[in-house]
């Protein structure tokens, strides 16, 4: 028997995961595992060109091939007013192209057939005549005089500019720069990458012709919001739409948006009257669904004569692809990028951002990130290391001298964020000690004398997660609360349903633990369900590390509501006054006589059998939690690298990560999240890249080109923690899913730049590949 069975499973216990049982046996229930009677299969024809006018689409040969039930084109979708759909950023996106294709891989037509082999055979037989147009592949190209107009169908759109957005105080920042002793500039490109969960996206749409009910099984991180969007797009009454997210094989932001494939499959099922399955292949996933980053950033940091940071100025150009469909809170055009002052007490800052259309896939999603925090954190942490190197200061000391101090919390940043809590020096010290920083510095010097190329990188990030308080945070007007509904059965077992959706984060365990802590029912007795919009309470979903901060809080709150009712029932059973009862996890007892007690199980039974006069039966409730503020996890990461002068290869020798995510509900799961994030951060820093040639051909549309780290390349991580509870979260928790991806890329790159700094090399953009390192070294005359 595993020890887990005998544990209560309260907060702070590393109980083993409840959800493991089915996955270990190969009995997970992922989208592609679902087969419905008479189900059809869909294959999508995509554009091979980045920018082209569609002259004709000939489906006649395809339509008469064996097994083919229908061929859906943009024209057909247009007849049903479904050729275009709204995006999460108040733009529109083509479902199936009618006029032009605007990126390589864009959806042009779809075949519905009896088998997937037949669907693919027929797709090959569709003939599309294109007139190729010049392609725009960067913001620079988008701005250029005479650049082709990508969104020519949009009324009033005369160029490729999407938005201009500012934050902070321009005049004050200008003044501070005028007085600066030193200004350090970094221009860096955070390239396009992709969340690439191991399971691709997909759906099975089942519109019942008799009842009109549309049941859509879908790999969605946010099923409720999707239901609402579907209702708005299709005009179907919302009670007739049921979205079910089955087990999800990783999301990392990729499974937040609504993709054209979902809409086409649903429309096809509606038209044909049979279920339609669409499962992306990997290349479709990488080439057309939500990418991340693609930010061109220039940062200036002003420093005074004492090494104090005095001002920060940032401009960024955002490459949004062909449609502005960033998945982010609607008020913020560049997400939460204005957290860019990071962990530092910088008196003033000014940020400007411009977004551009390009002939690239749309859908800037937060790849394991809270809405562009990753880009912000990368910029400030790279800039701070460069400033230290340029000023001849120690990277760690320079940070330490400029941190927001523990006594300054709650701290209002120059761009208006109210940091709830933090102790940055403490996390830094734990990291440096774990690393043996002082010794290592000496070792680096000694190795350099022998001609070795080696360095240490540090990043001390601050995250902003748990979106978010309804006054500021909404998606298409839907306030970003989340929910939990708790039912305690007569035998004292419970069912918890939530508006979030796990993609591997272990919600079935973590949220049961919150109930175990707050209501005293052992975690093993609490079943957790998510993802079915017909049964779960409305919520905005799981992304941006918001589940624990928001839905976790909702779970605590609903548990407490039930506890209040339980107290009244216990008082009735014990014939005592409410206020004479004491709560100890799992039972109420009469003050001073601990043997006069009722367990939560006894109370639950009484809730259905023996109630106080006039009390409503049952023990259940629901809570919608609108957080008062964001939470601000932080930490310090430190990396040691060795560089091969001959080939430019970088080897990560050590990686130390100290995280403070407040109270840890299940430390084992928290550490697992950190390991995963550090690995994705490693991938982003060194290998993951989606890029385009000048014609807009995508390079990185399969796993031979889009490189993901294996166990062999991935460093061994050394993990540490500090705990600074969030003062406003009912459990003191802050959320941790993304800290490691946010914080680690800069740490890795800073280590490489530190190693190369003796040669005067100050920047290499990610991914830091061996050829770029080689070129930098050779440009300074360093060779083997």
């Amino acid at each position, binding site marked *: 028997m595993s020890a887990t069975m005998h544990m209560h499973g309260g907060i702070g216990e590393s109980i083993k995961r409840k959800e493991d049982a089915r996955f270990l046996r190969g009995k997970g229930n992922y989208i592609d595992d679902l087969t419905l009677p008479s189900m059809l299969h869909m294959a999508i024809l995509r554009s091979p060109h980045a920018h082209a006018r569609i002259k004709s689409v000939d489906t006649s040969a395809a339509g008469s091939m064996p097994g083919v039930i229908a061929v859906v084109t943009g024209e057909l979708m247009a007849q049903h007013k479904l050729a275009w759909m709204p995006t999460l950023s108040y733009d529109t996106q083509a479902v199936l192209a009618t006029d032009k294709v605007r990126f390589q891989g864009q959806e042009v037509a779809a075949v519905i057939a009896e088998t997937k082999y037949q669907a693919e055979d027929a797709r090959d037989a569709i003939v599309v005549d294109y007139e190729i147009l010049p392609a725009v592949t960067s913001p620079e190209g988008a701005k250029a005089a005479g650049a082709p107009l990508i969104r020519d169908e949009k009324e009033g759109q005369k160029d490729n500019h999407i938005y201009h957005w500012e934050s902070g105080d321009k005049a004050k920042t200008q003044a501070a720069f005028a007085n600066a002793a030193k200004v350090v500039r970094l221009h860096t490109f955070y390239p396009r990458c992709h969340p690439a969960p191991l399971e691709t996206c997909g759906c099975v749409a089942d519109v019942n012709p008799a009842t009109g009910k549309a049941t859509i099984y879908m790999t969605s991180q946010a099923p409720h919001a999707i239901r609402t969007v579907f209702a708005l797009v299709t005009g179907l009454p919302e009670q007739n739409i049921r979205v079910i997210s089955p087990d999800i094989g990783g999301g990392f932001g990729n499974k937040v948006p609504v993709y054209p494939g979902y809409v086409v499959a649903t429309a096809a099922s509606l038209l044909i009257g049979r279920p339609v399955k669409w499962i992306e292949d990997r290349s479709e996933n990488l080439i057309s669904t939500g990418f991340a980053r693609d930010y061109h950033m220039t940062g200036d940091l002003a420093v005074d004569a004492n090494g104090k940071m005095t001002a920060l100025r940032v401009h960024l150009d955002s490459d949004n692809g062909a449609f502005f469909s960033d998945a982010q809170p609607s008020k913020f055009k560049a997400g939460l990028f204005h957290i860019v002052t990071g962990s530092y007490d910088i008196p003033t800052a000014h940020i400007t951002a411009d977004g551009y259309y390009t002939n690239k896939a749309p859908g800037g999603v937060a790849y394991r990130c809270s809405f562009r925090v990753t880009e912000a954190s990368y910029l400030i942490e790279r800039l701070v290391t460069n400033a230290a190197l340029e000023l001849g200061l120690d990277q760690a000391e320079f940070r330490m001298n400029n941190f927001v101090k523990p006594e300054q919390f709650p701290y209002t940043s120059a761009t208006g964020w109210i940091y709830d809590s933090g102790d940055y020096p403490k996390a830094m010290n734990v990291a440096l000690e774990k690393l043996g920083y002082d010794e290592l510095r000496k070792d680096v010097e000694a190795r350099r004398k022998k001609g070795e190329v080696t360095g240490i990188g540090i990043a001390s990030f601050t995250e902003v997660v748990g979106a978010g308080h309804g006054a500021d945070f909404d998606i298409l007007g839907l306030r970003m609360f989340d929910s939990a509904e708790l039912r305690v059965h007569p035998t004292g077992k419970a069912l918890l349903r939530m508006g979030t959706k796990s993609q591997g984060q272990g919600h079935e365990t973590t949220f049961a633990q919150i109930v175990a802590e707050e209501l005293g029912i052992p975690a093993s007795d609490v079943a957790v369900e998510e993802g079915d919009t017909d049964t779960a309470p409305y919520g905005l979903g799981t992304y941006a590390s918001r589940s624990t901060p928001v839905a976790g809080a909702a779970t605590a709150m609903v548990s407490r509501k039930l506890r209040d009712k339980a107290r009244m029932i216990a008082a009735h059973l014990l014939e005592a006054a409410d206020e004479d009862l004491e709560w100890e996890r799992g039972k109420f007892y009469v003050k001073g006589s601990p043997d006069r007690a009722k367990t939560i199980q006894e109370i639950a039974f009484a809730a259905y059998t023996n109630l106080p006069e006039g009390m409503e039966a049952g023990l259940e409730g629901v809570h919608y939690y609108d957080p008062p503020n964001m939470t601000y996890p932080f930490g310090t990461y430190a990396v040691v690298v060795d560089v091969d002068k001959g080939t430019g290869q970088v080897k990560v020798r050590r990686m130390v990560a100290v995280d403070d995510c407040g109270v840890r509900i299940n430390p084992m799961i928290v550490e697992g999240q950190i390991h995963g994030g550090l690995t994705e951060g490693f991938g982003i820093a060194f290998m993951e890249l989606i890029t385009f040639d000048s014609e807009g051909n995508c390079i990185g549309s399969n796993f031979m*080109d889009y490189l993901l780290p294996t166990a062999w390349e991935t460093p061994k991580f050394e993990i540490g923690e500090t705990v600074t509870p969030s003062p406003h979260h009912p459990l003191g928790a802050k959320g941790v899913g993304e800290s490691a991806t946010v914080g680690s890329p800069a740490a890795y790159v800073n280590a490489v730049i530190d190693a190369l700094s003796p040669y005067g090399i100050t920047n290499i953009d990610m991914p830091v590949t061996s050829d770029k390192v080689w070129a930098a070294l050779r440009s300074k005359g360093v060779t083997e």
Partner: protein
Amino acid sequence: MWGFLGGQAMFPAAFDYLAPTTLGEALDILAERGDDAKVMAGGQSLIPLLKLRFAQPALVLDIGRLPKLNVVSRHDGRLIIGALVRHVDVERDRTLADNAPIMAEAAHWIADPLVRNRGTLVGSVCHADPAGDWGAVMLALNAELVAKSKAGERVIAAAEFFKDPFTTALKPNEIVTEIRIPIPPGQAGGAYNKLERKVGDFATVAVAVQVEMNGRKVTRAGIGLTSVGPTNIKATEAEKALAGQELTDETIREAARLAASAADPKDDIRGSAAYKKDVVRVFVQRGLHTALGRAQEKRT
């Protein structure tokens, strides 16, 4: 670089499939249908191509059930590697470890452990991917291929085998049944250096180096290059420059320079042509130093 796959098929187009159990039968089938057939050994290159419909043969001829082709043996001063010997077999084989340690070293870095459980050395050579590792090793070791057809048998030197990317001297009616590697007399050593971006990636650059020594002098040097031209390249000038010489820093540097100028790489996502040439230089130097050390160890 695989390029644009978005919306390519994931399932092969239809084909006929035959899996004969004698070589005679297999050669008969090829004699008749060779022109629109594809031979399949481990399928680790062919099946990916079929799935993407880059290859759409009418017939797949699976040679996986032919007898006696999955053995490594030693015969007549040569190592014989049958057509069904897989990468993993090469990695573990004692005969090869004793006589040509470069083989296990190269095998180790091919693809990933699962692909190595299926893919064959001979299949890899026949596939003639300029980024394939075995071609370079075979060039360095002066290997020969034995090709059989209904008409008979011919022996093709590795140096004559590679014509263009994915194109060889093989005829559509031929099957390669084995590869033969001459066992070097006396002291010899080799090394395979590969630069890859991650496990499962093809080489950015790789270099196979083999030296055969008599005392301090090189009697024969073999240098094969991966991923730096339209085929695997034999760096003949560099080989010649080493023959009869002692391996000093100077001769090694010169050989490395000559090998780098034999390379003809292209700029791509993995790096510039200049980068790849320079890595050839670095790897020839490193490889010769290692090979020399190994040859000296083997002074028996």
